[in-house]
């Protein structure tokens, strides 16, 4: 379990996160939704030690973030940010191999190779594993980066807009795969996501943020509600029930 307690993040006078407290539960998909600038990505970056916080506490499996050794934490928690521009020329397999760095320190063992193969298979990249990243389509690139995170094999996986650059088919595939990771392998996943309908159909728990504060959080039925969503996004919503799933219509 990751406990987020009273997190404050400030740039100059602007409070990007204002006293945010919540929990990322084990064995669940937790989605963070909200308009641009709500502080969702910042929160994930703070939880994964990419940026420092001004005050508050992050507690991962009972141990404060500061007490974790960075390389130990890398076996526990992984993060993938939304823009992944690389300055070096890499093949897909080489990128995915980097995911094993926390375990192997760059000297890959047979076990590492197995994890790499599995991650490649999972993301259906085996056939093109020797292609260079700059030859790939946006969707293939995104899948390659997710495969790297999979190879890292952590309990917690934080994804900042993983559906960026993906078409509908691949988006659904990724979400299904995340669902499988949680249901079959017991991983815990937190995602920042803009498409509310994906959040509604695939998550266990939704945290809604606006202006650096948590407006509300809870299960699908509580959050996917026309008044609450209307309040967060400042627009009209209607919610439809289709095949037992709640879908938002907002056009």
């Amino acid at each position, binding site marked *: 379990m990751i406990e987020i307690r009273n997190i404050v993040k400030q740039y100059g006078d602007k409070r990007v996160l204002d006293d945010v407290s919540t929990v990322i539960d084990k064995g669940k998909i937790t989605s963070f939704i909200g308009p641009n600038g709500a502080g969702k990505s910042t929160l994930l970056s703070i939880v994964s030690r*990419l940026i420092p916080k001004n005050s508050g506490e992050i507690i991962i499996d009972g141990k404060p973030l500061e007490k974790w050794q*960075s390389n130990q934490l890398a*076996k526990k928690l992984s993060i993938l940010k939304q823009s992944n521009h690389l*300055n*070096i*020329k890499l093949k897909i397999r080489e990128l995915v191999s*980097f995911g094993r*760095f926390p375990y192997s320190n*760059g000297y890959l063992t047979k076990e590492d190779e197995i994890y790499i193969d599995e991650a490649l298979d999972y993301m259906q990249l085996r056939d093109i594993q020797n292609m260079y990243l700059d030859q790939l389509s946006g969707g293939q690139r995104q899948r390659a980066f997710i495969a790297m995170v999979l190879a*890292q094999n952590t309990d917690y996986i934080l994804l900042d807009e993983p559906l960026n650059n993906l078409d509908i088919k691949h988006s659904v595939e990724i979400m299904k795969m995340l669902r499988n990771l949680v249901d079959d392998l017991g991983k815990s996943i937190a995602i920042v996501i803009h498409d509310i309908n994906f959040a509604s159909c695939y998550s266990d728990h939704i945290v809604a943020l606006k202006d650096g504060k948590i407006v509300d959080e809870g299960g699908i039925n509580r959050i996917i509600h026309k008044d609450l969503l209307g309040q967060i996004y400042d627009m009209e919503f209607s919610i439809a029930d289709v095949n037992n799933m709640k879908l938002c219509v907002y056009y």
Partner: protein
Amino acid sequence: MVKKKSIWFLAIFSIVLILLFVFWGLNSSNWRYFLSLRIPKVTALVITGVAIAFSTLLFQTLTNNRILTPSLLGLDSLYMLIQTMVIFILGSTSLILINNKINFFISVGLMLIFSSLLFKGLFKRDRSNIMFFLLFGLILGTFFQSLSTFMQMMMDPNEFLHIQDRMFASFNHINTEILIIAFIIILALVLYSIKYFKLWDVLSLGRDHAINLGLDYHKTIRNMVVIVAILVSVSTALVGPITFLGLLVVNLAREFLNTYEHKYLFIGSSLISIVALLGGQLLIERVFNFSTPISVVINLIGGVYFLYLLLKENGA
């Protein structure tokens, strides 16, 4: 493997050049004299080549940018400022200028103090803002340059000739004692660095990925800045400012070897650097009869290549 083949090819090429450089034109009557001149020169060329290639490679990983060189840290400008100030204040006959050893230690010492202050001051505020660090180095470098130019303007023209001598890298008057010290420092640094090569591979993915994979970013960066600063200071104090060469050789190595691994890039770029320096020096000695310093040739070729790189990156 293509990588290994290219490296072997480069290694053989540099050994041929080294042998050519040392043994060309020797005969039974002059060998003592020539060898006593050529061996220090060849050693200086080799260690400078390695230092420049290595520092540029590290600097590019550090900044995640393929078209930067460590001259951005302002160390060469500081070196020129030190030399100019010594001549301006104490005159060209002062001990600090004439005694190469004292000059070497003072220059290296000041450059290291400068870079550590730069690093400390800026990383305290924001723990990982590398761009700010570079910008500050750039501004200070320009400031040092203007200050040197200002003093050079007011100087006696005869004194200015001494400065001009030091403005361009030259391998023609190498002091053997300094050479040994520089050799030991650079060899020690390279040996110390080998165990970090894999970490630097991860760092070349960028800051966020590196932290995600468990790298202690701040510590790694600090380590790299220290290594770069020592390499640049030592090579600059040994032969003069020549950092532009690094841009050329590191990018050629990337193109040639097509890899991200520092292990290969370090060896490859060092060898290319040695080939470029030795080849250039041979050209200058045998073809141009010492009429131009080597850094002029290197800056010319480096400049053209830099433009090519900019245009290429622009097109991509």
